[in-house]
């Protein structure tokens, strides 16, 4: 009961926290130069083209005012925030400034499945690989296997994923005739995706996913593997494991039946991040491989000052982040019944 009350309290706290995050960001971005009004002016003056024949003529004050009114910048900030939050449903119904034929929600819902595909596959693969690897390393602690796998894992950790991506592209995607041409240069799917058979679609999708997925995984491996290994080693050293062995149980039995469950607790704390991980995408990896996912959209929104998209992504990621933390605590409590949320 006390747990239920705790989680209800946590859920209720999400509302003011969410308003705090979005309101402060909303106010902050008013002071950053280059909002939609300035963007529209740049666009109209043709200033983004160095070589435009009609490039750069002046915009009159009347036109400036018309642009302001068009983007709602003629209203006071609290009205705008209220409109954003309530009338436009967290800005989801507003049109993107850059992709002007789409609403923020349309854009996000288009990009989300792409990031979800990579995020979820990466997440599952990293848990599938890292947990057994961590266990194997713990069981062979200090051995040759442990040493070599550590070297590989740390080298992977040291390489920034986007740099790794660029190397992979250079070596395996045929952009240079000196190397191999095994994988596509990027993109989520081939241009002729719609015309492919089911099997063709599956292979095409996998073909496009191999290199970016390797980049997604490379950084996560070290943290998760070592977390698993150290957590398990920690548990193996505990009294209760010695008790199991003293009572005639094998080390294997002690680990699989007792230590593993406890060793999973630190791993479970990261599980809440699956919410944001799937949503946020990996900005630089998506950029390197030209994958039109959430990461790219976020970067695009920031660079081109597409505030409505930026705010929309922020609102959703904050919400998911807040809920993810509650979910982590929930998993935590589920794994370890000793955990209570009572005040001492």
């Amino acid at each position, binding site marked *: 009961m006390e747990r239920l009350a705790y989680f209800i309290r946590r859920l209720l706290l999400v509302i003011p926290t969410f308003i705090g995050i979005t309101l402060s960001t909303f106010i902050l971005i008013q002071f950053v*130069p*280059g*909002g939609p009004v*300035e*963007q*529209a*002016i*740049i*666009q*109209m*003056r*043709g*200033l*983004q*083209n*160095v*070589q*435009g*024949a*009609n*490039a*750069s*003529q*002046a*915009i*009159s004050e*009347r*036109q400036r005012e*018309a*642009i302001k009114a*068009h983007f709602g910048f003629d209203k006071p900030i609290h009205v705008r925030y209220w409109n954003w939050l309530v009338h436009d449903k967290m800005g989801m119904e507003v*049109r993107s*400034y*850059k*992709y*002007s*034929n789409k609403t923020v929600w349309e854009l996000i819902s288009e990009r989300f499945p792409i990031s979800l595909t990579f995020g979820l596959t990466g997440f599952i693969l990293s848990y599938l690989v890292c947990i057994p690897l961590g266990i194997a390393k713990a069981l062979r602690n200090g051995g040759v296997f442990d040493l070599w796998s550590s070297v590989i894992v740390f080298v992977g950790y040291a390489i920034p994923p986007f740099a790794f991506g660029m190397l992979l*592209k250079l070596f395996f*995607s*045929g*952009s*240079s*005739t*000196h190397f191999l*041409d095994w994988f596509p*240069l*990027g*993109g989520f799917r081939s*241009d002729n995706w719609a015309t492919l058979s089911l099997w063709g679609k599956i292979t095409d999708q996998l073909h496009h996913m191999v290199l970016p997925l390797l980049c997604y995984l490379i950084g996560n491996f070290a943290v998760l593997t070592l977390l698993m290994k150290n957590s398990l080693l920690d548990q193996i050293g505990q009294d209760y494991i010695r008790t199991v062995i003293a009572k005639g149980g094998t080390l294997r039995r002690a680990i699989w039946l007792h230590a593993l469950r406890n060793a999973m607790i630190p791993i479970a704390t990261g599980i809440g991040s699956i919410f944001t991980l799937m949503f946020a995408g990996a900005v630089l990896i998506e*950029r390197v491989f*030209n994958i*039109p996912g959430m990461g*790219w959209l976020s970067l*695009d929104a920031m660079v081109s*000052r597409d505030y409505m998209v930026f705010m929309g992504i922020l609102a959703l990621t904050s919400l998911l982040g807040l809920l993810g933390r509650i979910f982590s605590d929930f998993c935590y409590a589920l794994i370890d019944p000793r955990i209570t949320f009572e005040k001492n």
Partner: protein
Amino acid sequence: MFQFRNRLLLASLSLLTFAAPGFLQAEESFPPEGWQERPDPLASPDAMPGGTISVYVGDYPKSFNYYLDNNVISSLIFNLMYPTLLEVDGVSKEFIPGICNRWTIGDDKQTFTFHIDPRAKWSDGKPMTAEDIVWTFDTILDDKNLTGVHKVGLETFERPEIIDQSTVRFKAKEVHWRNLLVLATFNVMPKHAFAKQDFNLINFEFPVVGGAYKIGELAESRYLRMQRRADWWGFKRASNEGVLNFNTIELRFFPDREQAFDAFNKGQIDLFQVYTSARWVRQTQGEPYDKNWIAKQQIYNYDPIGFQGFAMNLRRAPFDDVRVRKALAHLLDREKMNETIMYNQYFLHSSYFEDLYDRTKKSPNPQFAFDKAKARKLLEEAGWKVNKQTGILEKNGRPFEIIFLTRDASTDKFLVIYQEDLKDVGIRLKIERKDWAAWLKDMDDFNFDMTWASWGASLWRDPEGMWHSKEAERTGGNNVTGFADDRVDELIEKQKTIFDIEQRDEIVREIDQIVTSEVPYVLLWNIDYTRLLYWNKFGMPDTVLSKFGDGNAAISYWWYDDYAAADLQQARKTGRALPGKDFQVRFDDWYEGEEE
């Protein structure tokens, strides 16, 4: 090799010259009697319709509606879909029929009457009418539509008058040579297709078009395929023989040029223009280049050349002193930069209108050569003295410090060299990097000392926006340096009513010489040729590109050559080399003009 064309068409602009004030003649009609439409002299008779060309154009634009998004890509797409009232001859720059096959200019030089070609139809079969023209005009000038600078040109006219369904009359508010240009290059959209829509939301869907191409397949942020309309009425015109040949023009979008270049090397893009010398010199090697599967050519034509330089804010000290500005120009070691950073690929500017000069008319402007002694002398004359303790120049107790406002990290390598040379004479240069929007805000507020500015050029030189003193204090204008000179103002006013390009050019040369002597910019360098890479499977005119066009002229003049494409495919399969092409192609070597 040479193509000739009887040139019966007299320059519409030149003709106006003869109508000197006080000797006004009656309304003039164009084209003149006896004029006959001829094929484009640059189009090859071998051109065949068909095939696809895939071109990298840049990042995905915010709109394909050029009236809403004033950028080169949208302009390219929009012009393929929506024709203009008149067209421009690719060799002589004269106006030739577009949507309108006849036009008259009143004796007041302010009234322009256009007659729509009776064959002109929209893609849904409806005729193009005067109402379409007036509706497009009204739409652009409507305050609630975000059509920006397109308003500026049209605002100089009264609302056009519909004479009948195929005739429309414009009246300009003042006499100016630019008026006819504005009207001639005015793209018309169909009223019946768009009148009920919010114009600000017409971005990617254009169900009814009037040009040679319509939107085919669009994959957002990746590519746009434009489909040729075989039934386009314009193909009945002789001037369109041998041009606009590709069945599909695929425009590829990439967020950065590096990715696009990778895709080009892999064969996913057919045509790629190179803008950096490092790529041109060092990254165009390997099998496809060595075996001529990819052609690499430098095309010298008459593509207008803009200028770039370090713009100085003449509104504030010490840049209000011409001696200081001259000194700053003498302290920039352009030769060294060109040699060490740019593989000697560029020429050094000595003019703000480089196109005005050629072998026959050489620029009289001085080159500000790198000369520290001269710079020191000029600075001393201007009252700047070295503080022996700090080594910094000072005047009235104020140290000489320049804040260089930049928005691009790639400029740093040049600025560092400049910084060192300035330091040597006692000037401190601080680099302040901002992003586009923040940079623009500072520029609009005139809050800068010095910045890097690159300007494009037009076929028609118009010095007003950048050099007239009335533009100097206008927020968001082009006179960023705040340049003001009475004589230049006078010359700008004078050229407005001159319709002869040669005469105007003479005036612009005088303006150029005054401006150059006043040094509002530390002039940099530029390139006078187009660097082109393409997979060797296309047919093209001997001149490769048009007279005034950049690499995008390929879209109009090239064609897909089945034999060349098969040959390329075979060569790639077997590893065989293809015959090489000329590395340098000069327009004048292949086109010597036209016979009367």
